[in-house]
């Protein structure tokens, strides 16, 4: 019996959390962002030392002071951000740090290759040991990470938010892999805040909230709503409440748009799209099909090579970002750290990032900080941004609160067109609910909303129309009530077949 037990009361990050993993189970670790999931796992993995409490493996007390000890104990981690050397092959990556040597002290790559092949076949991973990492898909790379832990003899595998980067098809394959791993006697800890996955694959679920262990429940005896309220500490609505959309005049009209990516290759290839006032159009698609470039083109961050973008019948293609903003476009950027915020500015200064040069925030080029911080305070109050003060640096806020500040800033300018690129990425259900409600609220005020997301749930839930983007074009426009994830997934993969055979 494998039995990891860990308790450590005392410090705030992890307050008296008990997690018991049985052999052969998939155990979910559920919690909001910043709840302390990663801290807990880092303790288990030997990166942090607990102030109190103890870890037991197979009933025996152990002292894990560094990751190597964790490895020796059979604990392996599949990180959210892969730790792979791109130009190396799968085999080279897997043996890295634990290279098998032949009697001359040379690396015995053939032996390693054989072992890896065997492991891969046993668990149905279908990994080619000779492929280069840079040539294989993200889903495959993740399997290499799994193999890496198995190769090191892991009995307990920790998956840190493994589905965040995968397409729906890849997710279901990953869940199958997890099932076959436990069938072979491995045990899995799945860190996630996606409730659907927990319901689908896990046996038990431990919930932490604000560093405290809330408890462990049997997944078969619970449901999504209960898990969510355990995690957040209050009732959560998954289905965004919304009335029927009443689309008005066309706000955004894109015709035959071509945009080049950084390598000067066409990535948006003749795209047409219309967004009308009072509707939310969701763009579904696998990352890398031109969504980011489309948005950058609309907002003026990237040059348009040809085609037209009309906002309220006015051509805005290739205008400067400032002109486009002034024409009534709000943009919640995909990467809030890179684009959305100046992290070293206070939250107040960030609130006026696009309006600082206007009255009343400045007069004759001299800033009026009193007005700036007054405005910031009102947005912080209205959008429930939790920050010690408006003078706090944006860097110090949690992701959810940073995002709320950005959304407050963008919506407050009451733009005719609001572009939201992955507005809920990395956020927990509480913040997601809030953001979805805000988007719908804007729609009901008669604004046009363009939502880009890689999360099908989000697209299905919030959009009034779904535009599926593949290979730089909109390949289909469907209504959420007339479709399902399966069909969308196929469309996103470029398949024209309505409901046909599974690709791959």
């Amino acid at each position, binding site marked *: 019996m494998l039995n990891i037990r860990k308790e450590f009361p005392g410090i705030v990050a992890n307050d008296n959390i008990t997690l018991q993993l049985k052999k052969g189970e998939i155990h979910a670790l559920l919690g909001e962002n910043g709840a302390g999931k990663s801290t807990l796992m880092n303790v288990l993995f030997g990166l942090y030392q607990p102030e109190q409490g103890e870890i037991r493996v197979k009933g025996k007390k152990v002292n894990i002071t560094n990751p190597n000890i964790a490895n020796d104990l059979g604990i392996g981690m599949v990180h959210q951000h892969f730790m792979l050397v791109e130009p190396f092959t799968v085999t080279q990556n897997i043996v890295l740090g634990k290279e098998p040597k032949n009697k001359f002290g040379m690396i015995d790559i053939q032996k390693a290759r054989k072992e890896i092949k065997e492991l891969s076949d046993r668990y149905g991973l279908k990994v080619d040991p000779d492929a280069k990492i840079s040539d294989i898909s993200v889903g495959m790379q993740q399997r290499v990470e799994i193999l890496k832990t198995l190769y090191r003899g892991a009995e307990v595998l920790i998956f840190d938010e493994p589905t965040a980067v995968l397409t729906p098809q890849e997710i279901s394959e990953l869940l199958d892999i997890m099932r076959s791993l436990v069938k072979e006697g491995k045990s899995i800890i799945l860190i996630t805040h996606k409730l659907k996955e927990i319901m689908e694959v896990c046996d038990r679920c431990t919930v932490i909230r604000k560093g405290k262990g809330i408890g462990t429940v049997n997944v078969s005896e619970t449901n999504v709503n209960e898990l969510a309220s355990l995690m957040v500490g209050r009732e959560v609505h998954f289905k965004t409440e919304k009335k029927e959309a009443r689309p008005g005049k066309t706000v955004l009209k894109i015709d035959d748009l071509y945009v080049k990516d950084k390598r000067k290759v066409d990535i948006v290839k003749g795209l047409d799209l219309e967004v009308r006032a009072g509707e939310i159009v969701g763009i579904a698609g696998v990352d890398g099909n031109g969504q980011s470039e489309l948005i950058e083109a609309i*907002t003026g*961050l990237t040059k348009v090579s040809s085609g037209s973008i009309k906002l309220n019948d006015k051509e805005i293609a290739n205008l*400067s*970002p*400032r*002109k*486009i*903003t*002034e024409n009534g476009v709000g*943009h919640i*950027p995909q990467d809030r750290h*890179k*684009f*959305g*915020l*100046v*992290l*070293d*500015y206070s939250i107040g*200064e960030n609130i006026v*990032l*696009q309006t*600082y*040069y206007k009255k009343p925030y*400045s007069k004759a*080029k*001299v*800033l009026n900080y009193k007005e700036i911080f007054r405005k910031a305070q009102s947005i912080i109050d209205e959008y429930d941004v939790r920050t010690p003060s408006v*003078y*706090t*640096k944006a860097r*110090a806020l949690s992701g959810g609160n940073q995002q709320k500040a950005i959304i407050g800033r963008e919506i407050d300018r009451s733009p005719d067109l609001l572009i939201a690129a992955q507005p809920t990425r990395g956020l927990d259900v509480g913040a997601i609910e809030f953001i979805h409600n805000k988007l719908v609220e804007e729609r009901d005020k008669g604004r046009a909303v363009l939502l880009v997301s890689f999360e099908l749930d989000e697209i299905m839930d919030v959009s009034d129309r779904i535009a599926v983007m593949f290979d730089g074009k909109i390949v289909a426009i469907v209504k959420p009530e007339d479709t399902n994830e399966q069909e969308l997934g196929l469309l996103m993969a470029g398949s024209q077949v309505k409901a046909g055979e599974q690709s791959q």
Partner: protein
Amino acid sequence: MTSNNKLFGILVPIISVLLGLIVGALIMLSSGNNPLEGYVALWNGAFGDAYTLGETIRRTTPLILTGLAVAFAFKTGLFNIGAEGQVIVGWITAVWVGLVIDAPMIIHLPLAILAGAIAGGLWGFLPGLLKAKLGVHEVIVTIMMNYIALYSTNEIIRSVLTDQQTTTDTIAETASLASPWLQSLTFYSRVHYGVFIALLAAVIMWFLVERTTYGYELKAVGFNRHASNYAGMNVGKNIILSMVIAGAFAGLAGAMEGLGTYGNMSVMSGFTNLGFDGIAVALLGGNNALGIVLAAILFGALKEGAGEMPTAAGVPTELVDIIIALIIFFVASSYIIRWAILRFKKEEK
């Protein structure tokens, strides 16, 4: 959190200076000198009488300006190694205007000062332009611009302003910053009105950076280029503007030397080091206007006081260079000091 950072911002330079002096004392001890005598000589050399005080202020003046020049560019995330070259072109241009133009003081002096600032600004414009348009790294360009400034200035002095002489004529009275009033107060030291210009420049820098939309944009570009672009700021324009203003500050420093201290310019065998010292001043002053003024005073005093050390205490002047180097070393390794302070605090609890 924020107040903690501010505390560090003040503590780190102070501790660095103290550590620099302590290690300097150890070096004096190890070479058989009395550190106390050495430091007394240093103090007297810098502040001992009205004359040395005047000379200390005179030395401090251009250091404030070059410190501002480095710090200002740094606010936009640019490393202006070119303050040196900007000083040189500012100097020669100011002297040139001081020599050839014939006008009443009320026109001539401001014109000469302005010419120095514009020349420095132009010297900053080029690296800024290359950075903004072509992404050429400003460190490389500014370093090369330093050499261009040095050698072309020498050639201008030799072939244009004089006939194969090594020093230009003295500028017209009407373009001089020299102040008989200040000189008489300080036993005829070379202190001049430039110090007020330098202090005014520090105030301008503070106001520009902290209170205007220009400063807001410049800092935003320095912190996060992508977000600035997203917010509709013209990133390239800000980079150029930042380098131009930085260059103008350094150009002013050159004008101070040309119009105030020396009243002429000589062929130089090497750099003035005013620009390079500006980097140290900016670093020690935490890129903040008030900090820069204080750091410049410290460096000015150390450099002026050093002259007294060999005669009064038998300590070679080079020791001051060692101390300055040590201070910079400790500021640069402020991480260690931060760590030590934190450690200390923790144990107190």
